[in-house]
């Protein structure tokens, strides 16, 4: 079952295409990341889903229904440092935001206690948000998105501007939500590691367009098969280099010719390359796939280096 479906969504501000004909969907219970450089349209997309921005064209469905009628399924945390009333305590904030949605009573109170407990905020529950650390404020804000127990949670840059420790804390909180609460989550971020660690699928935006869209694993695989690194026992002679260059592969000779890097499109090609090396009695010390982290993939894609 698709929890969120975005079909051919576009939003223009004058001539600027903030979001340009994007489509993607997220299944119930899955967690998807939206990645993209500044101004690529992440916030605009999220706000369109929340019905805070009316798109120029396209449709958004929440569990198959138009998003304008589906607010009860969605909670969201927006970018920026606030999202909370600073003169209220965490408990009062959560109660207030539940009240805004017309919820209250004993059940909600119990739920608030549970959430504060879960996020280790119990001893701060009566301190004004104003006096909490930035990381704790963000935890309260995330708890706020959970207080109404909606199916879908949208998080716009939940780790932006946090110090290292708070970053880790928030990541743990998010992992906890992912593993034990069965929510459908869409989160936008610049943080590749966060995506790598908690997202299943990823949509990469650049200048309002989707430039890549796949599972995190598939994207990593796709790029992992690109580059092999072959370390040799001794440097290549000029003749050998010439010979290899004429084979029709993309070889790069590094470290004075003691190491070869090669981009291949099919895994089998590596055997052909090894055979060629054997013919010339070039000895191999080590062969490995070059490590590719998400950051590099992301940079590749958004720089348009890779189609």
């Amino acid at each position: 079952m698709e929890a969120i479906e975005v079909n051919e969504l576009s939003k223009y501000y004058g001539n600027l295409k903030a979001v340009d004909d994007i489509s993607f969907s997220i299944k119930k219970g899955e967690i998807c990341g939206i990645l993209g450089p500044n101004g690529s349209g992440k916030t605009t997309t999220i706000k369109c889903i929340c019905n805070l921005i009316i798109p120029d064209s396209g449709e958004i469905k929440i569990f198959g229904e138009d998003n304008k009628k589906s607010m009860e399924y969605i909670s969201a945390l927006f970018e920026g440092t606030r999202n909370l009333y600073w003169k209220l305590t965490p408990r009062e904030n959560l109660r207030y935001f539940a009240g805004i949605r017309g919820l209250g009573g004993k059940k909600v109170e119990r739920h608030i206690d549970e959430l504060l407990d879960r996020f280790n905020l119990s001893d701060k529950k009566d301190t004004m948000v104003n006096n909490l650390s930035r990381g704790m404020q963000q935890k309260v804000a995330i708890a706020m998105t959970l207080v109404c127990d909606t199916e879908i949670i949208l998080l716009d840059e939940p780790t932006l501007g946090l110090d290292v420790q708070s970053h880790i804390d928030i990541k743990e909180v998010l992992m906890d939500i992912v593993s034990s609460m069965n929510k459908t989550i869409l989160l936008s971020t610049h943080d590749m590691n966060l995506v790598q660690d908690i997202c299943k699928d990823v949509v990469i935006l650049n200048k309002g367009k989707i430039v890549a869209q796949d599972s995190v694993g598939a994207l990593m695989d796709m790029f992992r098969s690109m580059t092999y690194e072959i370390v040799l026992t001794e440097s290549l002679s000029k003749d050998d280099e010439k010979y290899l260059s004429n084979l029709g592969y993309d070889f790069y000779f590094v470290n004075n010719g003691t190491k070869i890097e090669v981009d291949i499109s099919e895994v089998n090609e590596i055997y052909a390359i090894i055979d060629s090396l054997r013919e010339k009695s070039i000895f191999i010390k080590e062969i490995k796939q070059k490590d590719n982290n998400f950051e590099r993939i992301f940079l590749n894609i958004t720089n348009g280096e890779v189609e």
Partner: protein
Amino acid sequence: MKKIYYLFKVSLEKNVKELYRYKFNTISNLLIFYILFMVMFSGLKSFGMSLGVSPLDMGENLEGFIVGYFLWTIIMVAYSDIAFSIIDDASKGTLEQLNMSNINLSQILVVRSISNLLIETIFSIFLLLIIMETTGHWLEINVLSILIPIFIGVFSILGIGLMCGGLALIFKRVQSLLNIIQYFLIVLVATFPRSRIISGLLPFNYAAGSIFSTMMGGCSFRDFSALDYGIMAGNSLLYFIIGLFVFNKCVKVAKCRGLLGQY
């Protein structure tokens, strides 16, 4: 209905908590009003005496003055609260959250304003009691005769508040507009055209007129005719509905331009 109840409950709770947390502001506001009032009170009294007005007439003027003042406070809150609420929440980054509800933004803001008005009313009555206690001058004011027309009529002002709020969503800086509207509102609660039709068409004017006539004529809310109530309620409803309409249009414009929550 239950939804609105919880919404009202948390709005009131937030109001009270914030009054308490901004203690200094709250107390100094009260003090300023108290001092201002005492100065005017004694000024009016000596002014009356120097003109040779008998203390009895004086009492009536004072009552009118106090009721006028009370009306004025209520109206000030009712017309500006929604716009201020929007500006405040937009700058705090919570305006988006108010939109994340299946209760309409307009409803949330109106309920908030009503909760604010309630607190303002309680404060005013409290202040008035203190003033009467300290001056030893107990006024004869039939509170119900004032509160009932206010309650019926105040929705017209809330309608104007909704319009201002809608503009605040789009233009953000509406302070000077609010100031100008304030002067129109002074006129509305201080001049009463003879024609029922004109008075009935101006926002709140008929209700304000009724309140003053109870003050001056010594009648009470029971003496108003069904027509009086009809005009008050109709007027209130009319402006409230126009306000809602304008506000919802403005929300739409703000959503199209991506302005909701941007500050």
